[in-house]
């Protein structure tokens, strides 16, 4: 039994060492996913946040996108549209942030695939949006394309994915 315990202990130590390694030296996929989750946290608005905080969040939100970024959506209630460039994204984000009371954005079930060149990546995820009054306000499958620009992973394209054809 002592041997079994020692083996179990060894397995625990190896697993802990492996986990620590991934924390200290994260893979590009992990860095990309962290970036996407950071975007969700920035897009989340708490009820008590004032105008200045919200304006700061808009600037922070824009920093996740490349200058030529595109957001293309096809949604049942909102139709089809493509938002092009940081300026247009900023304009729409500012308008949305000033009118919404509170919003919680989460990107769940996310997986990242980094290209062989380690300079481009694609993330597939599901956006879950909750408001104060409606916990299940909206769920939408999304695909992000990112590029490594000046050492930072920036979003170059976001598009909605149709779950059902």
């Amino acid at each position, binding site marked *: *039994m002592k041997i*079994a*315990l020692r083996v*179990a202990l060894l397995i625990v130590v190896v697993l802990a060492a492996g986990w620590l390694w991934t924390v200290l030296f994260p893979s590009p996929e992990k860095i990309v996913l962290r970036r996407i989750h950071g975007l969700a946290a920035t897009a989340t608005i708490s009820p008590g946040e004032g105008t200045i905080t919200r304006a700061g969040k808009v600037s922070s939100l824009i920093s996740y996108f490349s200058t030529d970024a595109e957001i293309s959506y096809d949604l*049942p209630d909102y139709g089809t549209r493509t938002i092009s460039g940081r300026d247009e994204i900023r304009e729409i984000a500012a308008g949305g942030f000033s009118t919404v009371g509170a919003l919680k954005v989460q990107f*769940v*079930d*996310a*997986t990242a695939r980094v290209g062989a060149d380690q300079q481009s990546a694609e993330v*597939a*995820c*599901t956006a*879950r949006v909750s408001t104060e009054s409606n*916990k*299940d306000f909206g*769920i939408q*499958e*999304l695909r992000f394309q990112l590029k490594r620009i000046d050492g930072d992973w920036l979003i170059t394209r976001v598009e909605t*994915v*149709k*779950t*059902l*054809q």
Partner: protein
Amino acid sequence: MQDTNHSAENPGWVQIVLIGRRPEFTLLRIFVLVLLCVVTVKFVLLPIRVAGISMEPTYHNHQIDCVNRLAYWRHGPQRGDVVAIRYSDPGPFSAPSQMLMKRVIGLPGETVWFHRGRVYINGRLLDEPYLKTPCDWEADPMTCGPDQYFVVGDNRSMPFKDHTKGRADRDRIIGKVLL
């Protein structure tokens, strides 16, 4: 001295209740039990909470249920099955956290047509005893691909445009709703 040895071999009742006569076996049992629970919840019976009214009156908002992920291991979904459909793929070692709950009405290759609130499969009227509400849906015929299933909710009293429905790829159907 004899007493000391005796107490070491025969642990007190507190120890027996808390960690058992042989702590190492208790530890092993806990490990196996936790592993079994994790594997079951992630890969076999996925617990779900219904959100929304699209499956009323069969399933209600906030109802708790389970998805049997092994239901379609040997065969594909059957007409009438209530299935869980994933959104984005979380990868092989994770269970999706967001799913659609819908009923399969059209099988691969079949044409589904909504006319005056009734469903026609390849031109033949589909008997749907689970429907309890009136429906006035009207839509052009839609044909499923070789690996697609047409899914729709049971609440057909909702406006057609507000109801999520359509063709789901086979690999998106993760299992059958248990109850």
